């Protein structure tokens, strides 16, 4: 490969979110006329890396060089001025304006009459850009009428109009059809030929191997290496994406598995989840894995009644239940620990007692609170889960992430008629100590005969906790696997469908 100019260089980038280091001394660079692909599992740090490069997030340490010059504090605006454009799926397009108006937005061509935009000239210029890129769009079409692919292409055209040197695309094809994907990949190759640098992130390794010049693999915030396309094959990439230290795996004890207690049959909702069928036995932990956006959270929301299914049936102990709402699901014995405790779990500004007893209060009878009972039950839960709190008036936001998560889980342990526990990402943003305690709670629940569904993006968690693992892809439950001798790479292959 001929020596070309370096457009972008990142050196020793470190980024910490709360207690987690999401990028550990990562280096990355991009040459002129190159497509550099970033691959890795959910949460490997790909998105964070490009957010740093687009100025949306600032790193804790490390150096950023753009066109050979060191940039100390990069803001989104500065990044665009320096020629770095990030193409998002939908954002940044004004639906009510035409293609040409979108491309010239904020940079309108003025005509001789003051305050009037020269629409004709804009349309002509746009036509030129589109033609050069081989994009077949009507410049006077309203952007809102275009498909996702069309909107992405406008964004690319706009970037070119603004003389961008670097284009970043994060999962551009996840909602595109086959034809559209092909058109987009061709377009990217044309851009490359014009000397632009492209950073391309995708879960779809097939695409990556079609267009990449180089591939960088990230795993848990660490760079596993950068390879020329010729130097590496698909299997090696998958192996490098996974393959973790055994220390990260939790050694759980076996628990005898009983009869089927929970079953879904052909459960589906248009556009989100398609005809999912599976069952969970008493004492069993059923893991559900898949890529972000594969419909895992939607599936459990359907079971919990937070979303209403179009079709399908849900059974507990052979009896058909059709949860109409979360309260209905709760009464029928389903518990749901959601994936984002800040958004869907915690009552900020309220103390731990109120946070612990919200479910119990809802399920008990009467109009008045039983304050003594509340105090007794919350004290019990605090002790049982060893939640570190100073006193009962402590607000939940004052606890650490792990303790917050334990409070949210503890809330559900007070639902005495529970049959099924759904944990969506139970240890997201939780430190190692609390993580093991949460695993112990789950095992205790299983031992007491409850059924457990655990959605997880954390591969070691999925492999070390689950009895069986269901694989979700594009809204379908494609495989259900017995978890013996399963390997990370086997799972990843099923997740991405190669």
């Amino acid at each position: 490969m001929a020596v070309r100019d370096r457009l972008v260089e990142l050196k020793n980038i470190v980024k910490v979110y709360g207690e987690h280091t999401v990028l550990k001394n990562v280096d990355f660079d991009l040459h002129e006329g190159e497509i550099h692909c970033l691959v890795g599992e959910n949460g490997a740090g790909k998105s964070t890396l490009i957010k740093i490069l687009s100025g949306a997030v600032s790193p804790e340490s490390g150096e950023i060089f753009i066109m050979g010059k060191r940039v100390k504090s990069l803001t989104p605006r500065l990044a665009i001025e320096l020629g770095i454009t990030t193409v998002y799926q939908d954002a940044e397009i004004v639906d009510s304006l035409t293609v040409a108006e979108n491309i010239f937005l904020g940079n309108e061509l003025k005509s001789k009459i003051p305050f009037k935009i020269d629409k004709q000239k804009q349309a002509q210029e746009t036509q030129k850009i589109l033609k050069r890129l081989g994009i077949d769009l009507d410049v006077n079409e309203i952007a809102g009428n275009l498909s996702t692919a069309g909107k992405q292409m406008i964004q690319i055209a706009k970037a070119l109009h603004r003389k961008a040197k670097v284009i970043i695309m994060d999962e551009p094809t996840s909602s595109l059809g086959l034809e559209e994907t092909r058109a987009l990949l061709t377009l990217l190759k044309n851009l490359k030929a014009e000397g632009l640098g492209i950073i391309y992130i995708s879960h779809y390794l097939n695409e990556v191997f079609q267009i990449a010049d180089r591939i960088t693999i990230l795993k848990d915030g660490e760079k596993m290496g950068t390879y020329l396309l010729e130097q590496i094959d698909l299997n090696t990439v998958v192996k490098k994406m996974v393959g973790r230290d055994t220390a990260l795996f939790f050694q759980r004890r076996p628990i005898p598995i009983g009869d089927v207690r929970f079953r879904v049959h052909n459960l589906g909702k248009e556009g989100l989840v398609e005809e999912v069928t599976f069952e969970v036995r008493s004492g069993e932990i059923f893991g559900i894995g898949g890529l972000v956006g594969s419909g895992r959270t939607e599936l459990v929301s359907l079971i919990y009644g937070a979303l209403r299914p179009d079709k399908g049936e849900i059974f507990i102990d052979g009896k058909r239940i059709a949860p109409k709402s979360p309260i209905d699901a709760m009464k029928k014995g389903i518990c749901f620990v959601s994936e984002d405790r800040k958004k869907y779990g915690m009552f900020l500004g309220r103390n731990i007692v109120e946070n612990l007893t919200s479910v119990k209060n809802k399920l008990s009878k009467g109009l008045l609170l039983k304050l003594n009972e509340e105090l007794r039950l919350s004290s019990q839960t605090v002790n049982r889960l060893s939640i570190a709190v100073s006193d009962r008036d402590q607000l939940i936001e004052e606890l650490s992430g792990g303790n917050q998560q334990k409070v949210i889980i503890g809330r559900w342990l007070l639902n005495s008629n529970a049959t099924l526990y759904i944990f969506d990402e139970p240890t997201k943003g939780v430190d190692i100590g609390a993580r093991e305690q949460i695993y112990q709670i789950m095992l205790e629940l299983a031992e007491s005969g409850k059924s457990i569904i655990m959605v997880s993006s954390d591969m070691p968690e999925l492999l070390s906790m689950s009895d069986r693992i269901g694989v979700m892809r594009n809204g379908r439950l494609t495989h259900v696997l017995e978890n013996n001798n399963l390997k990370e790479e086997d799972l990843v292959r099923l997740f991405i469908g190669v």
Partner: protein
Amino acid sequence: MEQKNSNQVLSKGKRPVYKNQWFFLLLAEVVLAVITGTINPRFFSIRNITNILEQIAVLGILASGMTMLIISGEIDISVGANIGLVSCVIAMMIRNDISYFWIILVALILAAFNSLLVGSSSLVFKAPSFITSLGFLSVFRGTAYAITKGVFQTIYGKFEALGLTRIWGILPLGFLIGISIYFLAHFILKYSKLGRHFYAVGSNTAAAYLSGISIFKTKLAAFLINGLLVGLASMILLSRVGAAQPTTGSGLELRAIGAVVIGGTPLSGGKGNILGTFFGVLLMGIISNTLNMLRVNPYFQEVVFGIFIVASLAVSAFSAYSGRGIFKKFIKQSREG
């Protein structure tokens, strides 16, 4: 981590008294009273104190309802217009010698109905209640003008027991009713499931829904209670003033919101208590009285109140982010947006 034995009960938090918002209000009230009392000794006369208590009764009742609404994450700026409409309707009924039973019933039901209109339109159309109540403010006041044809409705000394009775010649009945409403509101917020649900939906709607709480029912209940209290306040006000017109009550909504907010209940919802509101209302009453005592031009009184409300909103905005730094948070949000 602290080791705990298995049956230890969680201890109560030790929060110094001076960290409460009401403590500052009490302090401000004492200071104001001392200053005013020194300049004009009549401030401490029994007559003046009784007068203050009488004046803040209506505001206190409104502020109690508003506290529950704001804690639930809602607001109603049409309460002033609601009072105007209800007072006009019942004043016309009194003029026609309709029995008090029907008058009380109509006052409560009409006010509650109006408040539920604001609430349900906000919940059904998923519009902020600030906007729907702004719309209904106009509807209520317009209706009041239409039915009275803009004519002042004097009730000639009828129906004055509620507003003018003084127990043992000192304690105004209205004030006693106001105090019992504070207790009722405190009871609801602290000891009932409904009150707990107010805090929950105000703090995190999504989490409340996933915990099985019905957002619709809970918020509607807050509007219902607010409406009933507006009905009660309308009767006391009409009884004390002796006449009603469509503009009766206008501006009271802002004073009530101001009292709630300065009492430590942020407009973002999910936090706050009635004790703060009590002292907030008292502060409003004392300021108003002080301005009278010091013979401040009534027009300037309006100015002072306006500034006071804006200042209290500023206090709320900053205390909602206290410790974290509002600007730091803002910058972080806009960067990671």
